[in-house]
């Protein structure tokens, strides 16, 4: 049907026809959608409702307390401190991702028979479970069984030995290094995928026009990497603010030492299921309120990043 012919058919009839048109694919999608709604959407929405109660997570619901749990989230010094730790992790990883990971991607973009093995090695940390990564770094940095301090001693750098995880001023940095090791894998691979999209003829044309290597990188390669930057940085925000398992393994439930390694995920988990001690009272509703605040905050951060970086992409193209 041409556009003229389509215009001659009344709009109402077009809509009715569209509705009547058979769509067998919807029936195929239905089981998956039903499962998703039942096991994800409904529980998530239920957590919004339960956050309005005073409920430990065990036994019958307590009193309806309205938005008290949400108010408490913003007055909770421990949660605020944990959130700042997440911000710190995000900033540190943001700097590392957009420099080191990009640099590694550029190195690995060169044609060499070693490219495949190196890519596999770089990507390996991302395939490892965060729990395993946490244990690896704990073994590296442990004051008793760690290999870093003896290693420093062996190479004559004994003066740099330190109880990395026991010192509040270095414990979070040590955890950030562990997170960076894992995150760098995905970031590098995404940048590498982005680099494959840079048309070689554009680079060649720039070189022919007399551009230096740095100019080619700045004016040709970087613009073409804009989509990769968008993906990497949005995913990074989610990774940094949702950090939990690796941090929990290294810092424990109470963010040793003295809360220096608490992140929002640890605090929420501790309130929901206990802080890993013998005697715990849980606060499930409060944990749900904290989870919702994290969800909204993370949604906002991601949306802002997505909008800003997407605009930048459009400007580039």
């Amino acid at each position, binding site marked *: 049907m041409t556009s003229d012919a389509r215009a001659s058919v009344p709009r109402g009839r077009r809509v009715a026809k569209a509705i009547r048109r058979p769509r067998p694919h919807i029936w195929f999608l239905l089981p998956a959608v039903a499962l998703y709604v039942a096991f994800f959407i409904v*529980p*998530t929405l239920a*957590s919004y409702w339960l956050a309005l109660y005073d409920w*430990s*997570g*065990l*036994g*019958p619901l307590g009193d309806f307390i309205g938005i008290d749990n949400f108010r408490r989230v913003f007055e909770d010094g*421990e949660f605020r401190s944990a959130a700042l730790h997440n911000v710190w992790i995000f900033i540190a990883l943001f700097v590392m991702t957009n420099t080191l990971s990009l640099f590694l991607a550029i190195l690995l973009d060169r044609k060499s028979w070693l490219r495949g093995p190196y890519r596999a090695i770089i990507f390996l940390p*991302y*395939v490892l*479970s965060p*729990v395993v990564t946490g244990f690896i770094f704990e073994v590296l940095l*442990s*004051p*008793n*069984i760690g290999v870093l301090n003896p290693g420093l001693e062996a190479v004559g750098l004994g003066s740099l030995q330190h*109880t*990395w*995880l*026991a010192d509040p001023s270095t414990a979070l940095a040590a955890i950030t290094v562990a997170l960076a090791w894992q995150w760098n894998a995905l970031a590098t691979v*995404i940048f590498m*995928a982005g680099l494959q999209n840079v048309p070689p003829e554009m680079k060649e044309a720039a070189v022919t026009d007399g551009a230096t290597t740095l100019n080619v990188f700045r004016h040709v390669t970087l613009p073409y990497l804009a*989509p*990769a930057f968008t*993906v990497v940085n*949005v*995913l990074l925000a*989610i990774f940094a603010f*949702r950090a939990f*398992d690796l941090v*929990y393994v290294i810092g*424990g*439930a*109470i963010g*040793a*030492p*003295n*809360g*220096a390694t608490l992140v929002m995920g640890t605090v*929420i*988990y501790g309130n*929901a*299921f*206990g*802080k*890993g*001690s*013998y*005697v*715990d009272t*849980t606060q*499930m509703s409060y944990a*749900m309120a904290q*989870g*919702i605040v*994290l*969800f909204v905050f*993370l949604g906002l951060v*991601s949306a802002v990043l997505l909008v800003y970086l997407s605009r930048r992409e459009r400007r580039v193209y």
Partner: protein
Amino acid sequence: MTQERKGPRAESAGAAGTERAEKGLTRAGALKKGVGGILAAGAVGSLATPAFAGSAGSARRTADATKISMWGNHPEWKPVLDRLIAAFEKTHPGIDVELSYKPGPQYTAALNTALAGGAAPDVIGWIEGDAIRVGAKAKQIIPLDGKIPIAKLIPAARAQVAFNNHVYGSPLAAYTVGIFYQRPIFKEYGLKPPTNWTQLLAATKKLAAEGVTPWSMPAKDMIIPYFFYIMAASSILGQNGYRGLRRGTRKVTEPQVVRAAQLMIDLQEYYNDGFQAVSYAEGKALFAQGRTAMLIGGSADYTGYKQVNPKVDVGVFGFPAPNGRSHVTVTGMELLYTVNSKSEHKPEATTLVNWLSSKGAQQVVANELARPIAVGVVPSRSNRVGREMVLAGAPDIPVWYSQPETGGTFGAVTSAGGIFTGDLTAMEFAQKVQASIKPNKKA
């Protein structure tokens, strides 16, 4: 309601991780995952699975037997408990017990997660204190009136499982906490168990001067510092003083009691390297290997020391009072076993809980694990450490967190790690602890 149900979930989590890694390479795929990730952040439960996924169950299987699940919180007890369970299965051929372990520091979180997810074991073990009462109120466990020989349990055990005119179960064992010391190290340097704080400090300094790390003080989870503090404070307060604390006539902020917190600070330079990042389990291993000379430990820990170092040679003494007039130990209950109201095998689970408190089972507990909870059962003569532990405490005071008035002290101490980083003074630490105490004049 058995452990096998966890297997597929753990596997699917692993598979999902691999799949995520593979699909994260395209922009569209990555962003879709990202949006999913944002949504997932709203669900608290999504944080739970990786840390506790998977655990080993008993290897024994009987073709037609009813399988019931049960958790323990002392993985180091496995060899003894395996034998205990084997003995039960031998006398009850129709029941196959699948026993798995969640290490102590993670136990409560693991149990709460399982209860919330409807995946708790058939036989639920509760940490002493309020938890079992909350569970009973929430009808997560069933009353076992007339099915447990409650009159044959020691009073401290009865007090934990009999309440609201019902009997809900039985503890497996009791534990007493004192100070373990390495006998060969003490012998080598001519030291004897200290009888007052002056001697305690002198022994500590002497060991340090000889190049020995005097104390294991794993503080990553603050469990050992908690026991250190309540024992030091109890050594000052005594039995009457502790009763006064519960009734509100005494306070831990009194200058003489603040000395307990100050002692923890004063000894800080004598703790193991990086003690603030060392977990309870690692601290115990350090001590068992003889890399430290002293450790606050419970009767239940000795089995673990032997597992780490079969040749371990340790002794026990109570925490000396500052003036040397007494030695304090604190005593509490190990897991309080009850029957899950959602269990499909309640009669079998009840049989097991009942059997755990029997004289036969309790003799094994007394000889090899901890303090028995059955009246009239005593450790065999070969269990020197068990006997020493019983004799070490005069007075023997309840573990503070087991009593309603002082139940909050555990949370207060675990959130007061600032005492080791210089962020809290001894008095500020004591004030935090005092704020968590809810005095009751009738206590």
